[in-house]
């Protein structure tokens, strides 16, 4: 046995878990993942710390300072109502990231549940669930989200619900494919012979094995969720003014695009960087977890 016996066991377990995590996700093996992780951490830091680092109140109107170009006072200038663009952009990260997490969490909840139940049960349950998923997949994602958001009424909450409804079939497909092969594994039969119920097998045996591709799918769709939400906000179906949401900010600033370029540029660049962070992280995780690319 290695390690000292006197070491507090609690600390040991945490260290064990961290090293376990590092073994399972060897982040240093992929440069993509490293860059993605660094950018993601920066974005997350900004989101958490925006009240501390933002120089101004993001919704405070100051009509004397309307449409100011970038200066020492307002690094990224001000918008048509004299609000500080930098502060609004920083605060915007909170809404985007929080919404993206909620969207993906909802989509995972619906999609993974439907998917593993479909794949594990087979037969008419599988057919029914997957044909419902196909109905959702038949529409272009943004169009479907627009339709749902418009039907529910324009608000951030409804935009989140609409976007989740667009994403869940993808999780259902991934989870179903995993469940389809896991259910034929020996340990599922073994669990049956021990007297485990189907529900128990789904939760304790199928789900943990299926988590890897689901994690990859999550990291890949976070960025897309942000774009979809920003798009909905841009056309007025998402966050409503004066909420500092990136899509809304771009929509507000597009009238001034030619002369006051900074109003749309800041949130645009923010969207770009955030999505790139998530996508690089997602690609990196996929690279790490995929055995085909592990050696290259």
């Amino acid at each position, binding site marked *: 046995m290695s390690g000292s016996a006197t070491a507090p066991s609690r600390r040991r377990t945490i260290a064990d878990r961290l090293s376990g995590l590092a073994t399972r996700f060897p982040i240093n093996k992929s440069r993509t993942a490293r860059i993605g992780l660094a950018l993601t951490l920066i974005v997350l830091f900004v989101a958490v710390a925006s009240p501390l680092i933002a120089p101004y109140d993001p919704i405070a109107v100051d009509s004397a300072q309307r449409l100011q170009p970038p200066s020492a006072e307002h690094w990224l200038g001000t918008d048509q109502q004299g609000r500080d663009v930098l502060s609004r952009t920083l605060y915007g990260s909170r809404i985007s990231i929080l919404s993206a997490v909620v969207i993906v969490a909802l989509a995972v909840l619906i999609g993974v549940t439907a998917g593993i139940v479909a794949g594990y049960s087979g037969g008419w349950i599988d057919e029914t669930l997957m044909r419902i998923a196909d109905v959702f997949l038949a529409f272009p994602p943004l169009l479907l989200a627009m339709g749902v958001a418009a039907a529910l009424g324009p608000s951030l909450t409804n935009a989140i619900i609409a976007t989740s409804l667009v994403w869940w079939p993808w999780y259902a497909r991934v989870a179903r494919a995993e469940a389809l092969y896991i259910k034929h594994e020996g340990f599922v039969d073994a669990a049956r012979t*021990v*007297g485990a119920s189907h529900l128990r097998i789904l939760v304790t045996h199928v789900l943990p094995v299926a988590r890897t591709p689901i994690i990859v799918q999550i990291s890949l769709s976070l960025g897309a969720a942000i774009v979809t939400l920003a798009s909905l906000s841009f056309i007025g179906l998402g966050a409503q003014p004066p909420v500092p949401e990136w899509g809304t900010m771009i929509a507000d600033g597009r009238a001034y695009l030619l002369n006051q370029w900074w109003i749309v540029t800041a949130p645009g660049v923010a969207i770009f960087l955030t999505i790139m962070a998530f996508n690089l992280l997602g690609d990196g995780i996929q690279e790490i977890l995929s055995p085909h690319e592990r050696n290259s």
Partner: protein
Amino acid sequence: MTRLLEIEDLTIRFRMGGRDVNVLNGVSYSVGKNESVGLVGESGSGKSVTNLAVMGLLPTAILDRGAGRFGDQNMLSMSPRQRQKLRGRQIGMIFQDPMNSLNPVLKIGRQIEEGIILHFRISRVEARRRAIEILRQCELPDAASLLNKYPHELSGGMLQRVMIAAALALEPQLLIADEPTTALDVTVQAQVLDLMSARVRDAGASMLLISHDLGVVASVTDRVNVMYAGSIVETGPSKEVFLRPRHPYTVGLVHSIPSLSDDGPVVPIEGSAPDLSNLPRGCPFAPRCRWRIAVCYDVKPALAPVEGLDGSAPRLLACHNPATAEEAATGKPAAKPAVPDEAAATLSSHHSGAC
């Protein structure tokens, strides 16, 4: 001897590609209390299907007829709930491939404790204590740290011991082991087998051992059933059957195992197992049998008691022309088959390269 498990006239048909596949054709056998019983046959003889049917892991639709009793319970009329309670708690099972029988992403401890908590409704701490105890009994060193390992960190032999421990932890009355040592290194096969039968005996349980290796089965069981093409062809005391086989198929099985003590050549069983969707009218073994007589192609022999050779214990045999003691010892019939091989041409052209 009181009977624990009794299977009667079990007949199972699969429908595959529009054809009926006769997987089991009226199989009857029993396992008594404190008894070890073997089920031997080559791949496709139906030995694994038999036990999946016992565990209720096959879709019931394919069951043609038959009866199964466990203790005083009728296994075929059970509700899924009753059957779920029976599994593990009363009938434990060990599979062929230990690497595949444990979930690769879960720690060993969690997987052993799962069954214990499920059936005994005790706390996780208590379950862990029991798991450690049973692992020790199964001669696994450092049981406590083993519980925190993942299956891939253990060797095949250790994993199979873990599986045995997990099954025995539920204190079943019957342990079904389906080719428990086939996936293991030869060096640990005997260890694992001895351990398993010793622990089963200690626990006062019964064992049903399924294997293609008659030698392995004979060494640890009291009685053996030899299966061919979905039927039992010979059944009797294990040592007896192994040392003095009567059915030509059993003779073939015994002589197809290379032996160090015996300089005689290894005699393979010619041909291959019959197509289960197109079984012959007579004895299914007739086309490969070197003892066959005319009646073999017409009438399927029933399993009937015959006197043992040299006045030994009687056994059940399904054969029109069983081997004599001398023939059993040499593995060859004394005379050439009386009936020419109807399918000789097809057999030799298809299987000339088979070993």
